[in-house]
């Protein structure tokens, strides 16, 4: 862990959490018609705090302890709490944020590559 943290800083863990959040939001969208399904989501800020704090465990643990159930704007008769517009917005937002994190990582890699190659 130590050496790749020095290179990627906070962004490596952020990317992992974004990726897990994408899976979770995909689960919500997949279960949009399943009776009784309860939509869930990751609190990204809290998960990232937990993953990067001093006594941090694995990213999986940090994510697992910061998962919550979505509170529906309007409840449906079959107990399903997925609201597609909400999930789609969150999914799109998360995808953009994933790309942003990826850009930060790309910047770090570019910097190191430039340092390795020298002035060529």
């Amino acid at each position, binding site marked *: 862990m130590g050496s790749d943290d020095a290179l990627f800083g906070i962004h490596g863990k952020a990317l992992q959490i974004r990726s897990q959040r994408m899976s979770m939001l995909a689960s919500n969208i997949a279960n949009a018609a399943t009776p009784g399904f309860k939509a869930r989501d990751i609190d990204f800020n809290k998960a990232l705090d937990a993953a990067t704090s001093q006594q941090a465990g694995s990213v999986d643990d940090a994510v697992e302890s910061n*998962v919550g159930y979505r509170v529906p704007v309007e409840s449906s008769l079959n107990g399903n709490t997925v609201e597609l517009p909400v999930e789609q917005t969150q999914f799109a937002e998360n995808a953009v944020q994933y790309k942003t994190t990826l850009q930060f990582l790309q910047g770090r890699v570019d910097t190191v590559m430039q340092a390795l190659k020298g002035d060529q």
Partner: protein
Amino acid sequence: MSTPMSVFDIAGRAMSAQIVRLNTVASNMANAGTVSGSEATAYRALKPVFQQVSDAPGVSTVKVTQVVQSNTQPTKRHDPENPLADKDGNVWDAGVDSAAELVDMIETQRQYQNNVQVMQTAKQLTLDTLRIEK
């Protein structure tokens, strides 16, 4: 963590479930005009039962556990001319609510599209991640 379900598994299986649902809608629409000689043998709409499948907390997809006959009642119609009519001259029209089936079809289509969109986004992000060192 042992290989958790990927976004492709989640969206892919959800798409399969929606296809099963579309098949039942097609069956119901096809049989909407079916006539039967008794109430017991009359066609009743088929409905899939969706259930979530989860192998890790927070990550779950969906499957069709069974396809059941709905309890939409066939409508009795007096039509002595019909060769299928019983001794009282009654026939039973299929218990299919065409309007509800059409609504179901549109809903299925939208949810299938949603899953395709999820898959496309996930594919693009995965490819972007693979290309990071270039």
